[in-house]
């Protein structure tokens, strides 16, 4: 099994497209860093008057709270915001800015969507290309079970995706430090859980951010991998994967008036909806979404397994 994964890694690492993807990720971070540093409103904003800003913000929160027209949800948010801001003022903890080390790392979290796209491309190619190149015939006449070969491909794609995430984190951290100084590295992240405020390391917060975004990523890779395995066609797998990645959420939005829409994969991929705001469809809970996601994950993998192990190799 270890050898099979090494084989898949060798094939991925000698494929030029893998490194082009990696290069694009690094390039975007650099461009994003330079743009944030030298242009844009935050570059010019003077530092140091954050306390005054927070006080103005608190005024707005207080107004919301006294306004009877405001929905309960907004009021809850305002209460939390107020508590956090007061904690900041009391303990002299500056909020994270876009033009600071952690602000930049957090902002660059958006690149994960691009990594998801690249992961779909990899997942879409890794099985289908063995068929289109004809190499599948030489691959499957070895004393390895087919499911092990399939699993090694899956592990390899997920591994390279994690590597891209790691590159994203390290490069954006280093670049953020170089451009906006490393001195902000110790800034804590404040968690407000019903009035009780705790300071945690920013890395924990960033990991949470990456983790939540990676759910969508893993689901899309698994889907592309399944299409790649069932249809044995990489363009189809990549095409459908990218299509669903970009419009899946929009389509789900249109369908939210139907109660069955809560079973759609895309209604559940964003777990952040339970942390900050209203669920997409009424009656959805975090637990429900996790069950739906796990169910989709298992179904996709079972279909991949059957598509790969039970069928004749016709090429």
């Amino acid at each position, binding site marked *: 099994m270890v050898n099979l994964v090494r084989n898949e890694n060798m094939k991925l690492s000698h494929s030029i497209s893998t490194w082009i993807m990696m290069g694009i990720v690094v390039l975007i971070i650099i461009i994003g860093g330079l743009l944030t540093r030298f242009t844009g409103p935050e570059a010019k904003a003077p530092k140091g008057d954050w306390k005054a800003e927070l006080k103005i913000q608190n005024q707005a929160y207080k107004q919301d709270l006294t306004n009877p027209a405001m929905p309960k949800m907004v009021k809850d948010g305002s209460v939390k915001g107020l508590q956090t801001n007061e904690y900041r003022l009391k303990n002299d903890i500056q909020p994270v800015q876009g033009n600071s080390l952690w602000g930049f790392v957090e902002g660059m979290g958006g690149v994960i969507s691009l990594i998801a796209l690249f992961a779909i491309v990899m997942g879409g190619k890794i099985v289908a290309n063995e068929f289109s190149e004809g190499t599948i015939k030489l691959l*499957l006449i070895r004393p390895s079970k087919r499911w092990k070969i399939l699993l090694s491909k899956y592990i390899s794609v997920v591994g390279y995706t994690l590597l891209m995430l790691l590159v994203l984190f390290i490069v954006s951290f280093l670049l953020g430090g170089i451009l906006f100084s490393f001195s902000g590295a110790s800034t804590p992240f404040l968690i407000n859980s019903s009035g009780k405020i705790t300071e945690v390391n920013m890395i924990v917060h960033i990991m949470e951010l990456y983790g939540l975004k990676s759910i969508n990523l893993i689901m899309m890779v698994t889907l592309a991998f399944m299409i790649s395995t069932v249809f044995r066609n990489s363009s189809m797998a990549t095409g459908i994967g990218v299509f669903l990645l970009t419009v899946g959420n929009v389509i789900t939005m249109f369908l939210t008036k139907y109660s069955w829409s809560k079973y759609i994969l895309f209604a559940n991929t964003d777990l952040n909806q339970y942390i900050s705001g209203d669920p997409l469809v009424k009656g959805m809970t975090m637990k429900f979404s996790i069950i739906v996601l796990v169910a989709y994950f298992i179904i996709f993998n079972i279909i991949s397994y059957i598509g790969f192990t039970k069928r004749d190799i016709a090429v």
Partner: protein
Amino acid sequence: MEGKTIVQIKNVTKKIGKKVIIDELTFDVHSGEVFGFLGPNGAGKTTTIKMLLGLMSMTKGEMYIDGFNIEKDFEKAIAKVGGIIENPDLYKYLTGYQNLLHFWRMYPDIKRERIDEVIKIVGLEKRIHDKIKTYSLGMRQRLGVAQALLNSPKLLVLDEPTNGLDPAGIHELRNHLRTLAREENIAVIVSSHLLSEMELMCDRVGIIQGGKLVRIQDMREMLEDEADSIVALTVTPINSAKTYLESLSGKYNPKINDKEIEILENMENIPDLVEKLVGQGIKIYGVRKVQQSLEKKFLEMTGGNEIA
């Protein structure tokens, strides 16, 4: 000398939908022999080979390699098999060595040195660290043979191995297979639709048509056990020789072919016939046995060039 039975194919049938692709196929292949699998395009050669290598499932029947059932005991059965199916499709963006390393990693207990051994066997030492996309077809074919030999197989299966090879390449491959069968006592199965190739390469030939095994034929028997041979005589004057032969026996059925005259006769009777011709004042410049080619036999057996 008959070797150990390596391949057993028992009543194998393959249906795709309602179409019968392979119909009750049964044959054995022994170690040390080159078994030719001959048939027109679409007869079911590749399907049979894919079933033997576990790439396709069987609808009915069983296949054993070295005693192991290919479906129930796949890993053990396939461990001692090397194969090339159609073209040797390798990873073009990897080097020759990386390709071999890739397949070597898939065997649990083959020494790493074996990679260098097979490279030496096929003579690719100089180009082994170049990417496959820079290889000629002949070199790819050789690397294909190298990967098939990695696990020191007891059975080598080659599907249409000479496709796209030039005559020198075919010659080389033929010698390779012969040597492997004889010296390493490997059983070799080669499929082809090219009859002339099979004549030169194989010890036995199974002829398949429309998914059915029409006949299994030992090559030497096939070529030698002829009661009557075609004999070509170079004579002058050719026309009177023809008339005379016709008057001797109806069975000769003489045909003038350029400067030769071809008749059908048992070789044992040829000296007498030569004497008779000389007695008639006919000058003889040459007597030659024309080998009846497998092609003719093949066409007889399969009833022409019909594609199943």
